[in-house]
């Protein structure tokens, strides 16, 4: 049974009268993001084997982790593209609001712990 679809050339959502999806990436762009993520993962692993210590080891790993985080959230979860839609920033605020709240709360938690060495 063949799967077929008839598409209209218009980008507008004819059912809703508006579109909260923004312009999604193309298949090629998804592949590019995936390759970048895979390369960063490989570099992360290689970096951990260099025998570096302290900040030299941790800071680049954290930076690469944050880049990967934003790549997945921005491209795969469409946050970057939702920003272009009317009120689309609400999605971003709902998510990053949770992250900022978590970082704030747990920063306070960490500050209450003191390990005596």
């Amino acid at each position, binding site marked *: 049974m063949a799967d077929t679809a*008839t598409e209209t050339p218009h980008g507008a959502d004819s059912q809703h009268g508006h579109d909260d999806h923004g312009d999604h990436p193309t298949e090629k762009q998804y592949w590019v993001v995936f390759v970048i993520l895979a390369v960063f*993962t490989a570099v992360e692993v290689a970096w951990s084997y260099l025998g570096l210590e302290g900040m030299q080891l941790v800071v680049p790993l954290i930076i690469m982790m944050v880049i990967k985080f934003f790549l997945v959230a921005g491209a795969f979860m469409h946050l970057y593209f939702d920003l272009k839609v009317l009120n689309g920033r609400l999605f971003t605020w709902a998510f990053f609001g949770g992250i900022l709240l978590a970082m704030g709360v747990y920063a306070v938690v960490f500050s209450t712990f003191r390990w005596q060495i």
Partner: protein
Amino acid sequence: MTDTAAREMPLEPENELQDDVAVVDDHGSDIAGHDDHEGHHSSLGLSNMKLAMWLFLGSECLLFGALISTYLLSKARFLTELVALNPRVLDGLRDGGMPEELIQEFIAEGSVEPIFDIPFTSGSSFILLMSSLTMVFAHKAVSEGNYRNSRVWLAATALLGSTFMAGQVYEFTIFFREGLTYGGSLFGSGFFTLTGFHGAHVTGGIIMLLSLLVLSFRGKLQSNRAETVELVGLYWHFVDIVWVLIFTIVYLIP
């Protein structure tokens, strides 16, 4: 085509291909006039379901923030216990960190053993990243009305997720045999709670993916319900994002 002729044209294909055919625009919205489309929109012009999912994911950040913080605290506690057991670590910490040669010395004498298999976990991370790619293709295929491809991508995502979970079960088994148990140390408790919760989320995602697959085979996952796939996709990518954090914080930073 006259207006009369246009009115007489069926809006939905009424033939044996009905389950696999959709009339969509290039954003994946079904223009056939279904009444049961999802994603009821708020006065903000946004889908309520999608906004609810983002708020849920925001709250999940608090959950995983708590788990990661607990893990880091239990790891710090573990180190202080290590210091208490072996005062020679103290000199290393006072000099700004744990010297690599001291760690190697501990490994040699058996008081500290490297337990993480980084190449294996790197492979698992790659598999989970790959599953995010197949997930976006599944959503794209449903949006475009290409139901056969959507089933392939959904099945591939579920399979990759299952492979990741199989890897985690294997890893847990090895750790258990090596003596790292849930109740054995604070480090073990923090580690298994964090990675176990993540594994439970992946398992929940796999169940959702299989449910979508069943819906698709029953012909109930057409392009007018593409938002359902997008919501599951958001959840799946979030699980992937959490693993990005866990992989670096737990496995790569000693």
